[in-house]
């Protein structure tokens, strides 16, 4: 299919996952991700070996993913913010069991039941490890329906290479909007999984998938090994795209749906002669800290823009480490910032009205 078709972010994500070789889907309905599951429910029963299962809850769904992943399958689940909270324990187990899988969070506004409009207020839970014990997820933040597709492939492949769970951090805007997309001619890279618990068939020793280590020293060693992989991932796989950064004196840092609005604001600011560019983290963990650090040396100021009260801005500040002032602008509750609002913040920054 090389013709461009219009697709919703949610549906494109589902189709991309199938093309990336993931035919095991376990979910539980929640707005605004429902189209993703509905798409899977239509497609998977028609595919040999395809499993679409609506679990009784998010807790159950993530544990089905745990089982499916433990057996060596490419497996995924999708949900939205409150549902991701319920998956926290399971995700921590998946991470602690060194299993790869894909978790999609089509974020909505919180906390609590909140609302169903777009949000980016799950940045912290996503990047600081959803659940206890400090494990990490690979977190991808596409900003267009096309990029959703591309990152789904990356997510599965890196997840399996490093045996860690991956997350696509989407939001209601990206999930619900339609854009023209082309599905790439990309054959999924499938690794051998000699560790999988799928029956030893009298051909190998038994495999155990487990996260329990009652001996503290053993557990520490497990954690250490994992941290080494984390360091490697941080080294190799952080990603950010830049726009108008070559001569920039100021930068907006923004990801996902919000970064599109920020892009419009930057165009408007440039028209007013402000030398501002955009740094858009594509991976949220690993966060593109080095890139931002390097850039920040030559900047007069940074404006982080999020649909939250300020979460990614922590990582920006950590990256910048005092090199230049870091400002923040955010909208919450499901409100999408407008280009004009962002422009006005950029203007304030360039005039020195905010530090």
């Amino acid at each position, binding site marked *: 299919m090389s013709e461009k078709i219009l697709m919703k972010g949610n549906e494109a994500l589902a189709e991309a996952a199938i093309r990336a070789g993931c035919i095991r889907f376990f979910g539980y309905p929640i707005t605004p991700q429902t189209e993703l599951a509905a798409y899977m429910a239509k497609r998977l029963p028609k595919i040999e070996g395809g499993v679409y299962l609506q679990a009784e809850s998010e807790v159950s769904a993530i*544990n089905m993913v745990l089982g499916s992943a433990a057996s060596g399958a490419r497996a995924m689940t999708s949900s939205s913010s409150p549902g991701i909270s319920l998956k926290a324990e399971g995700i921590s187990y998946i991470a602690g069991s060194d299993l790869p899988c894909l978790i999609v969070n089509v974020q909505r506004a919180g906390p609590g039941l909140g609302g169903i409009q777009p949000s980016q207020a799950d940045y912290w839970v996503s990047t600081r490890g959803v659940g206890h014990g400090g494990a990490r997820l690979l977190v991808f933040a596409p900003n267009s329906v096309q990029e959703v597709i591309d990152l789904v492939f990356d997510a599965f492949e890196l997840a399996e290479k490093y045996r860690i769970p991956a997350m696509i951090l989407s939001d209601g805007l990206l999930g619900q909007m339609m854009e023209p997309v082309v599905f790439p001619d990309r054959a999924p890279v499938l690794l051998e999984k000699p560790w999988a618990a799928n029956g030893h068939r009298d051909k190998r020793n038994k495999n155990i998938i487990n996260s329990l280590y009652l001996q503290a020293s053993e557990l520490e060693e497990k954690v250490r090994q994992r941290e080494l992989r984390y360091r490697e991932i941080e080294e190799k796989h952080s990603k950010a795209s830049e726009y108008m950064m070559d001569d920039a004196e100021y930068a907006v840092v923004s990801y996902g749906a919000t970064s599109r609005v920020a892009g419009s604001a930057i165009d408007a600011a440039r028209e007013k002669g402000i030398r501002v560019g955009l740094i858009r983290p594509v991976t949220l963990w690993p966060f593109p800290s080095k890139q931002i650090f390097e850039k920040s040396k030559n900047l007069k100021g940074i404006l982080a823009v999020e649909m939250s009260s300020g979460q990614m801005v922590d990582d920006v500040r950590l990256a910048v480490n005092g090199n230049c002032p870091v400002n923040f602008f955010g909208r919450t509750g499901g409100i999408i910032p407008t280009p004009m609002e962002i422009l006005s913040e950029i203007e304030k920054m360039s005039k020195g009205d905010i530090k």
Partner: protein
Amino acid sequence: MKTVFQKPRSLSDTPTHYCPGCTHGIVHRLVAEAIDELGIEGRTIGIAPVGCSVSAYNYFNNDMVQAPHGRAPAVATGIKRSVKDSVVFTYQGDGDLAAIGTAETVHAATRGENITVIFINNAIYGMTGGQMAPTTLEGQVTQTTPYGRDASIAGNPIRVSEMLATLDGPGYIERVAVDSPAHVRAAKKAIKKAFETQIKGKGFSLIEVISTCPTNWGLSPGDAMVWLRENMIPHYPLGVFVDWEKEENDG
């Protein structure tokens, strides 16, 4: 002389960490015997719960996965659906299966998920040091019912087999005990039948094994067996609650 009794092949050589006289050990062996007899070790995947049997993955020779507390049936579902010819069993305590895991249990059952659940009902949370379980009897003293379980405050004990028998998904449900040689033999038969139910694709199977926790009951292993017989079996009557074979013959 001929060896008439030895360790089943699918049980590993690792000594268990269970307390002296804990019936977890007996049931482990029965499961392994069933796996041996059915010749399914190579395609069997077991799910260890959170509870005293959390380390069950060390004791069986088939592939094993350790599940979060209560979620073994969901984990089993994920595996069973992904590896079509697998034989999947969970091994769960009463806290795991009937408290935190209630939803996973009920829904695996109603889905007729083609897995086998070995359910160890010892009326207590063994691993965490003896708190009330959903199956703790009225009046029973535990760490969290220090004055005896008062149903009007702490609720009534659940009869899991009876409850699940109301659903359409189960193919085989039986309650057994392991307090006497005769009961142990019956338990073995039931466990094997549960695996056969799965192999034949007849749906969800569950064997509730009335068991002891000498340590947290504060009884010697022998006295625990007597307590089980005198207190638990009256509340949890042994018997078959669902049997696909009978239904097929009747229907």
